[in-house]
């Protein structure tokens, strides 16, 4: 992100000392900002009001989410989820910050036939972290694929991920088409050259209870994301039949950091989590004090 000139900040209700320890423990290179009175969180209107004030150690957290702003400070996109397990991956955020465009890069080697390549945009999957499954189509010169709206009798370019109980698949995003006028004057909406369809995916898993009731890491390890790409190619004179091509993308699922708690295998250098947790608990004292102030006025 630094190379792209995009700044990154995080903010939470933690005390500055807790964030300083976390920064040191995990080698964080961007500012972790402290909002211990939840002033900024409240000013943004995103205080999690489902947590009562009486739960003093947790009251004050926001509905978690991320804003992407442009150089003028205007919000260009934001990411908030009903299920707080899900969050946008760094690749998705960087793409959003750079305008979510697709630059195909240098012209590929000429191909005789449509080439389909599928890969994960990211090093691995982490439970809850959304990353794009990318299906890239390289179209031979002189030919094109279709986007929406598709002419009668043709199929649009699409992908479908095989159903998997542990896989979360969001709606695919296709790029803008290129208008292509043909002899009859009709305008077709086509894809030429190299085109990507991006599908946000993640897995369920992480810390949980296995069947025997013991604590376990679930959903971690190697897996394969598979599915089909559907497309139809035409040139200036004729069209081929609709085609289906399968793809398989081997991915590794790694666990996320669970703060300073959890199994020793995951724990990073201690960030004095216990001490900071006790400081959060001391918010109960403020609760008691403010209530006694009320009763004495």
């Amino acid at each position, binding site marked *: *992100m630094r190379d792209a000139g*995009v*700044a*990154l*900040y*995080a*903010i*939470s*209700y933690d005390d*500055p*000392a*807790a964030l*300083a320890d*976390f*920064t040191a423990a995990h080698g964080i290179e961007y500012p*972790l*900002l*402290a*909002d211990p009175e939840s002033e*900024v969180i409240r*000013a*943004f209107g*995103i205080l*999690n009001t*489902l947590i009562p004030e*009486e739960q*003093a*150690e947790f009251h004050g*957290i926001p509905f978690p*989410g*991320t*804003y*992407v*702003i*442009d*150089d*003028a400070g*205007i*919000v*260009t*996109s*934001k990411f908030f989820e*009903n299920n707080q397990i899900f969050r946008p991956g760094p690749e998705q955020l960087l793409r959003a*910050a750079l305008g979510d465009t697709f630059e195909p890069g240098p012209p590929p080697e000429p191909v005789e036939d449509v080439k389909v390549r599928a890969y994960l945009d990211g090093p691995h999957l982490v439970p809850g972290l959304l990353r794009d499954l990318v299906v890239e189509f390289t179209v031979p010169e002189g030919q094109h694929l279709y986007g929406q709206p598709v002419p009668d009798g043709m199929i649009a370019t699409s992908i479908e991920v095989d159903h998997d109980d542990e896989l979360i698949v969001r709606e695919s995003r296709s790029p803008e088409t290129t208008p292509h006028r043909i002899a009859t004057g009709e305008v077709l909406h086509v894809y030429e050259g190299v085109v990507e369809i991006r599908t946000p995916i993640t897995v369920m898993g*992480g810390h949980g209870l296995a069947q025997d009731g013991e*604590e376990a890491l679930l959903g971690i390890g190697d897996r394969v994301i598979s599915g089909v790409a559907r497309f139809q190619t035409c040139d200036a004179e004729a069209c081929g039949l609709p085609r289906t091509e399968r793809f398989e993308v081997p991915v590794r699922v790694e666990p996320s950091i669970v*703060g300073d*708690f*959890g199994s020793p295998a995951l*724990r990073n250098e201690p960030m004095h989590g*216990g001490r*900071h947790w*006790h400081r*959060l*608990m001391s918010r*109960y004292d403020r*609760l*008691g*004090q403010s*209530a006694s102030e009320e009763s004495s006025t």
Partner: protein
Amino acid sequence: MNQHGVTGEQLAARRAGQFWRDQDGFLSPVRPGEGPRRNPEGDFPTGPAVGTQLPEIVALDGSGNAFDLHADRGDRAAIVVFHRSAVW
């Protein structure tokens, strides 16, 4: 004490009984992975709308000093993450 006649200390003590303690003696407020998500159902407030100016953000840095986010970013695009906690 609060309106229910319970002191902050008593409340904390009650909640202390709910700590999760692992084999190494580390304390956690909850079993890992079971943090208070309180997932909102349906629509919920998500703050400034797309297309609007992100409000001022003046918070504290790790040393407790005031940190003005927009001053720091200058004229760069930015990503601002509101997360729940680095502690739990």
